[in-house]
């Protein structure tokens, strides 16, 4: 036995060991070297791309899009039409509910797809901009026109998010979180559709007595649903765009301010009065929506994806009704905070020409109309008359009319989505508040602490 480890074999082992490490390390070095090279190379090529706008569109075009509640039928239509218009382009689609995870290695290795639709779990526009992965579209946007000749830059319902004044993504889907209820049930039993926080409370009181259920549900596994669906509108109504920006950016003192505390007191009241589903702590996305459809609960704050996503599970006689989340004080209009899902081009896109052609192609009023027909949601373009189409669901036409009536609804804007680094700890504390294990005062302290950590 002893002989095995002398001389040659030992040498062989050492050699293998060294080899393995050299291989491991060198591949890493190679990657980062390649990265810097393509970095410099690409900033050059994107400059030149901006210069020569009219070149023939050909080559391979890779499109990454998340498929969630809106389905993929609209994408299939647009991509097929684009293919017809530009037959020389070979289109590769990367799509699915987990596409953000699946494509992550491509982004890390600096070989991203050309066009990306940023939506769904595992994606973060803010993070992508911070990492310099998205192309600066500020100047290019000024040249794009819709089919009618209107400038695209002037035709957004909500302006693109800006990072230090620069635009890196174009908001494609206009989603907004609000509160859903079953219109049929409310009409049958005569429950009041809430118009402000006081009537929200009295309506839920009625439902508790009438139906014997806890009226309000949200997904406890994703506490940020409640943050985006209920609290953002509440902050908007109470303190306008300024407060909304301050809490999202975690500005010092924003979370402990009186306005925020007052709003959080409302949440504490909701918890204390037993309005929340007592089991919501463990509910995931689908379970919470299923609970709502099964009348285990009467209200759920989520986005416009709900009817389309749950289309196969809607009980007979169920009729979707949508109101902006009624967290505002009596006498004030509803508040909504649009939530945008943008389309962007990768900074290191291999085919920026085709990518730009595609983005330009997708932003038309015709496709906006067909988007509403396919998905039951709204594309972020003005001047689309949804009532002209019979295929657009009724709740959407109504909601759209309501949102566009400033008497009824005030629209507030957030500067950009909240970073996951701030949203996660705040969501956790919020969960505790909703379960009744924390007071509003304790919550704002926790949130302020999280904001302080985020700022560092």
């Amino acid at each position, binding site marked *: 036995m002893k002989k095995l480890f002398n001389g040659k074999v030992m040498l062989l082992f050492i050699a293998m060991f060294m080899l*393995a490490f050299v291989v491991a390390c060198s591949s890493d070095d190679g990657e980062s070297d390649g990265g810097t090279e393509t970095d410099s190379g690409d900033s050059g090529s994107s400059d030149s791309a901006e210069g020569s706008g009219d070149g023939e569109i050909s080559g391979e075009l890779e499109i990454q899009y998340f498929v969630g509640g809106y389905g993929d039928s609209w994408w299939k239509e647009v991509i097929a039409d684009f293919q017809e218009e530009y037959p020389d382009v070979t289109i590769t689609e990367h799509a699915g509910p987990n596409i953000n995870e699946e494509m992550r290695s491509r982004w890390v290795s600096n070989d991203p797809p050309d066009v990306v639709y940023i939506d769904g779990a595992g994606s973060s526009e803010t993070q992508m901009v911070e990492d310099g992965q998205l192309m600066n579209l500020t100047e290019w946007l000024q040249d794009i026109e819709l089919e009618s000749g209107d400038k695209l830059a002037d035709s957004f319902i909500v302006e693109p998010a800006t990072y230090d004044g620069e635009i890196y993504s174009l908001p494609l889907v206009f989603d907004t979180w609000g509160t859903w209820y079953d219109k049929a049930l409310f009409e049958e039993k005569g429950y009041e559709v809430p118009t402000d926080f006081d009537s929200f409370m009295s309506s839920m009181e009625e439902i508790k007595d009438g139906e014997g259920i806890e009226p309000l549900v949200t997904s406890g596994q994703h506490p940020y649903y409640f943050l985006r669906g209920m609290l953002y509108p509440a902050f908007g109504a109470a303190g306008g765009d300024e407060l909304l920006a301050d809490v999202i950016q975690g500005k010092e003192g924003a979370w402990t301010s009186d306005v925020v505390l007052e709003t959080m007191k409302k949440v504490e009241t909701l918890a204390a009065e037993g309005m929340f589903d007592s089991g919501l702590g463990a509910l*995931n996305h689908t379970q919470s929506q299923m609970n709502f459809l099964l009348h285990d609960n009467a209200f759920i704050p989520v986005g416009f994806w709900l009817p389309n996503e749950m289309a196969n599970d809607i009980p007979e006689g169920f009729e979707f009704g949508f109101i902006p989340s009624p967290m505002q004080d009596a006498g004030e209009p509803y508040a909504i905070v649009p939530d945008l899902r943008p389309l962007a081009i990768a900074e290191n896109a291999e085919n920026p020409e085709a990518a730009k052609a595609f983005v330009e192609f997708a932003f038309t009023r015709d496709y906006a109309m067909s988007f509403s027909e396919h998905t039951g949601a709204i594309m972020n373009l003005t001047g689309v008359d949804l009532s002209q189409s019979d295929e657009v669901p009724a709740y959407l036409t109504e909601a759209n009319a309501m949102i566009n009536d400033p008497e009824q609804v005030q629209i507030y804007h957030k500067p950009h989505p909240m970073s996951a680094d701030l949203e996660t700890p705040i969501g956790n504390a919020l*969960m505790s508040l909703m379960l009744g294990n924390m007071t509003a005062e304790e919550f704002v302290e926790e949130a302020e602490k999280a904001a302080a950590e985020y700022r560092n």
Partner: protein
Amino acid sequence: MVQSKKQKYMFLAFCLVPTFIMFAIFTLYPLFSGLYYSFFDWSGSAQNKEFIGLDNYIKLINDAIIPDTIIHDYFLVATKVIGIMIMALFIAVALTQLKIKEAPFYRIVFFFPNIMSVVVIGILWTFIYNPSMGLVNSGLEFLGLESLARPWLGSETWALPSLVLPSIWAGIGLFMLMLMGGIANVSKSYYEAAEIDGANEWQQFWKVTLPLIWPQIKISILYIVITTLNGSFIIVQVMTGGGPNNSTHVMGSYLYQQAFVQFNFGYGATIGVMILVLSLITVLILQFLMRRDKVEY
């Protein structure tokens, strides 16, 4: 035929080198690159990363959630070791010593959870714990114990203890088989001798069975500890996602959240290093505590 030295070495190399290369690529390389990334501020979704030295480790020490995750992990380790070992041991003894006719049937029943994926087990138990239509709450209601019914996974107090039951249920089978193997190797004559000396079943268990299958018990405990520290992530991720309010986060699920949800991959790698160090220390301590002279009769 006498083998030449060269042939012998060739054969050895043939056996060892491929395995070693695989080991280096799939174990050593990730291990060291994890260590390497823990010194960087990196989002994990882009190429640019910044060397920040020990900053991630300083953050680790100051992170208020980390001590909770460690406590949760060791809570699961302790409850699982106790639960699984007691149950597996008694079932193994019962199935081997008590001459039950249906023993093969029970063996299959108890081993069944082991062939199921942990993800499936997690989803299954999520339904069992469902507050409105789950088996647990409706069972309690059926027995007239409504007051005990609660949203198990949705409660900050009860979520973590609720994870113990499925973990134990899923773990019993494998260790039951291991211990049965050990017991089967104990010669019948020891029991006969003990019986002649007037030892009852309990005394036989404590004085004969337990000392003789100690090696199997020791391996089982170590195995449970290691798999829990590394793998409790799955059941947490599937059943609660670490919530509500971090009350069920274990080190692994917190690592996942940091690395892939909050885009702090470097910090996630740091947590990974911590898990490695804690696992090593734990195993060393356990080895020390459980060392016993080999018993032979």
